[in-house]
């Protein structure tokens, strides 16, 4: 069970790392994968910097969590993912964005896995 849980955390962690790296190597296709086009000027800088950093941070934190088994490392990416999902709903309700249900589901499932892992795999900080 624990091994399966580790694998289920490691896979999205690697996916987040790849997505983060993709923002630095091929930002236009990385943007397209998230349903946006690559902007110009400062907008492009923010897209690559902020979004790339978000994904890389989450991936690295999840891998650190698996190695150290420290609870806070599981909680941090889970918090980020839950916030992303909440902001997506706010974007839909208040700002005419599309309701990206598939993405929200993935974010909540991974956040749930991280919280589950924090209780099953972790030791106290």
């Amino acid at each position, binding site marked *: 069970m624990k091994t399966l849980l580790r694998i289920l955390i490691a896979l999205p962690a690697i996916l987040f790392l790849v997505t983060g790296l*993709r923002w630095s190597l091929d930002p236009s296709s990385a943007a397209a994968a998230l349903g946006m086009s690559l902007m110009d000027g400062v907008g492009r800088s923010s897209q690559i910097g902020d979004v790339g950093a978000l994904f890389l941070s989450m991936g690295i934190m999840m891998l650190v969590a698996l*190695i150290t088994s420290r609870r806070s490392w599981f909680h941090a990416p889970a918090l980020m993912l839950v916030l992303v999902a909440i902001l997506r709903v706010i974007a839909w309700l208040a700002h005419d964005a599309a309701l990206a249900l598939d993405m929200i589901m993935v974010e909540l499932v991974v956040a749930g896995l991280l919280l589950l892992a924090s209780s099953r795999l972790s030791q106290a900080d």
Partner: protein
Amino acid sequence: MTVSRGRLPLRLTATALALASLCGMALAHAARPNVVLILADDLGFSDIAPYGGEINTPTLSAFAQSGVRFTNYHTTASCAPTRGMLLTSVDSHRNGVPNIPETIPPEQSVFPNYQGFLGTNVVTVASLLQDAGYHTYMAGKWHLGKERDQLPFRRGFERTVTMADSGADNWEQKPYLAIYKKANWFADGEVFELPKDFYSSRFLIDKTIEFISSNADDGQPFFAYVPFQAVHIPVQAPQAFTQKYMGVYDSGWSELRKQRQHRAEQLGITPVGTPMVDMSSTSDWNAYTEDERRYHAKRMAVYAGMIEAMDHHIGRLVDYLKKTGQYENTVFIFTSDNGSEASGGDDPRSPLLRFALKMQGYNTDYETLGLKGSFNTIGPSFASAAASPLAYYKFYAGEGGLRVPLVIAGASVPAMEKPNNAFTWVTDIAPTILELAGVKPPSGRYGGHPVEPMIGRSLLPVARGESDRVYSPTETIGYELGGNAALFQGDYKVVINIPPMGDNQWHLYNIVTDPGETQDLSTQMPQRFQEMLGHYQNYVAKNGVLPMPANYDAARQGVINGILDRFGGQILLAVLTIILLVPFYIVYRTRRR
């Protein structure tokens, strides 16, 4: 306002002079001809009827009848270098496109003149015409760069619909090679989706007519560049056109090569009694089974149908210009980017090839050959017949790769009954167009920065019968592409062709009396031979021609470049991900122990 009596005549005179000047300018503008530059893709020397072909090309025949056929016109042996030189009149090693980008090896691509896209150090004929008040249109294959700033809308073309790759499917928006993720079509610089009822030749002429119509009433002349996809692979044609040639090629490629040789001689395209070689890549027709011969004959029937379809659609453009009263003031220039294409082999139905094509969404079935979803080629044996009576074909520096049809017809070009045998070169087209338009070539600078000078000569004096030659017997023209090289001087040519078809040795031929390159004169004329080799070395030094890396293989390089171009990003991503993951894994394993 009052005008004093003394000043009135003066003002009237000034007004009259201004009006006269304006009228003069208007007349001068009205006299400038429209120019339609039509470029076929991979069309062999004797494919069209005016050059000895059995293929029905009434529009091109009419051009040939009312204008001039050049029988000693040479281009480069591959598409992108030709297109670069055609539009800029600058040697391919100076304009950035010395080879197709798909096959430039890394040892060369580090040099600025070997980037595979048109450099900013050259100016296109379209830019110069646009500056001179011409409307400039392009519909067709570009292949001189696929980044936004490299597309034709940035190189002097006012309206464009263009395919940026080396080729693409003729029936749908689909890449023909696995090295491309998609067929890259653009309209006025933006990504473009082809219509559902697309067929390349019809679509390109439809767009050309649409562009011309959009400005037809403003009195300004136009320059329309129409680089067809026909007859590049995949060779595809509407069934009605293919049907006309079913049974025509049942006697095989060797017989066809002889028939075309004979007709070319009758038409005065080549000297009577022109000898020709049998290419080692030509298979024995009689060694094939009846079913195989039937299949090969249909491959060529589709090819012929594709050429006739192209001619038919050029005819639609001519009809449109006649109906709108623009035909009489239009000059047509028709040519090909290089000789016939031999790829595809003589066993296109082998299980391996069928599997590879199936992965691309293609089949090679007999029943649907040439139609949507079908991948057709003519292979080396029919390619040799398409270049009859010349030796070699596309990619090689033999005459079959370099010598292609050139017809100029229309306003201010008188009919010339006999074909013209003056040596002409691809860089001569742009200066010819500029002279037709009354526009001067760039003099050292353009757009605020230095540009390469045009090296070609206008063909109009020869086309009008005012001159016999474009180049004097002592002038030299050098050429190199992927290690295949040549130098022309007067009636002579030194040439080297690399393997697999070439022997990697220099030879000397008289290409006027022996266009088939059958008799090597290097031992009979050693002094001329050595002098011309020396001129070639000067050409190499002057133009920055780089040596090919040892063991260079264009096909292998094409696969490597294709993989890197299409999957290079993903490969780098995978490597970086692994590099990032390795420390985590090491720490993880260490802690577990």
